[in-house]
């Protein structure tokens, strides 16, 4: 876990598409040499706000087996929760809670929201295991992403999201449950620990506000 790797992706994106490959390669090399210090971030991408959870460099591997930095979600509000697929007790309720929020949005609002369930059990939550839950629970892949971080990063992701957990001897987890609403920049704007099919009204209002089409289109 280290913020310095944060800007590697923008460095590469900015340089790979230049029509002068030598220039691009030189810049890329320079980037690599100085470990992509934040000062070298692509000029177009504004720096992340200091309170953005995307400051944590993190690769998520989703239910389709696609690995992407979670920073790629920047630009659209996200509903985030942590879970694991073999969970018997509360995790089904976490999915219910996400669905309940989704059901209470207009189609336009739904278009402006991503829903991400991040596994705290990446060893067992392979893309296949994640896909199985996504299919069983009929989660629309247009809006829902079920994904695993690298095992070494679970504590850090949980840390920025304010989730506490402990692995139990039998493979289950003891954990706190929350839905976290991120704005387009990855800042936590709302949070609820109310799970189940009845959405927390205050939280739902925050999601509606964040996904109001005019607001979402203006990029704020």
């Amino acid at each position: 876990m280290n913020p310095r790797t944060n800007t590697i992706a923008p460095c590469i994106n900015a340089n790979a598409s230049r029509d002068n490959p030598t220039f691009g390669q030189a810049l890329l090399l320079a980037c690599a040499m100085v470990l992509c210090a934040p000062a070298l971030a692509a000029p177009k991408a504004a720096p992340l706000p200091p309170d953005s959870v995307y400051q944590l460099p993190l690769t998520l591997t989703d239910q389709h087996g696609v690995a992407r930095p979670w920073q790629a979600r920047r630009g659209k509000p996200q509903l985030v929760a942590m879970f694991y697929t073999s969970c018997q007790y509360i995790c089904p309720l976490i999915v219910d809670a996400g669905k309940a929020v989704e059901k209470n949005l207009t189609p336009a609002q739904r278009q402006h929201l991503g829903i991400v369930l991040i596994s705290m059990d990446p060893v067992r939550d392979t893309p296949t295991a994640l896909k199985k839950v996504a299919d069983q629970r009929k989660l629309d892949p247009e809006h829902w992403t079920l994904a695993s971080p690298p095992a070494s990063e679970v504590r850090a992701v949980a840390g920025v999201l304010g989730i506490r957990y402990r692995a139990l001897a039998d493979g289950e987890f003891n954990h706190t449950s929350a839905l976290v609403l991120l704005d387009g920049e990855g800042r936590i704007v709302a949070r609820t620990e109310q799970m189940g099919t009845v959405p927390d009204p205050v939280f739902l209002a925050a999601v509606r506000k964040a996904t109001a089409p005019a607001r979402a289109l203006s990029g704020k």
Partner: protein
Amino acid sequence: MRRLAALLLLALPVAGLAGAAAGDYVKLPGAASFKSVLQYEDSSNGVRVAPFELMRKPVTNAQFLAFVAAQPQWRRDRVPSVFAETRYLSQWQGATALGPKALPQQPVTWVSWFAANAYCEAQGARLPTWSEWEFAAAADETRRDARKDPAWRERILAWYSRPSSAALPRAGLQAPNIHGVQDLHGLVWEWTDDYSALLVSSDNRNQGDADKTQFCGAGALSMSDRENYAVMMRVAMLSSLNGADATANLGFRCARSIK
């Protein structure tokens, strides 16, 4: 940009020097079944602590200064607030200067979990788990497990009763315990890797059974050794912290797995 690169190249070897010289760590044997002060439903027979290595002393201001010089994104004026609250390293005179209130050999405090974690990663190490810390801290100078000794308990509790406003002593002044580890008690509180696994409190903000909804799976832990106040206070404190928090008395040391 070239200047920045040069600066970083200069700074990197410093981190190497400040880091894990061989003598900084000692080997601890672990235990097949360590009796934690914490009683979990799933570990009533004790927890296994694999052999591991632990820093002899907590990380000092001087060591942490070398780290932020090598990795300036952890300077207090540059660290993202998601990783460290505003009081992070606030005892230092400047972002890269210790000053009179932070002596080089004092343990570094006002560090967040994210910063402590990054420091250990930079040394090719990690933070110790709670079980590892507790195992190491159960010893005294002559015994691996001195916890049942009332004198041992008294000695540790005496520290907690001292006001915390006084200046911190230097690291490494106390006698090493039987493993060769110093300052586990009586100097600073210490982060553990799994601070957020200590699910002591259950609150009733949730619908229905608070235990079931807040903690998926088995219930929260209970204390198996109610006499061991000193260790219980550590647990209570760690369980109340978030990863970006920092306090005047909270430092850390690193650990390494033995491969």
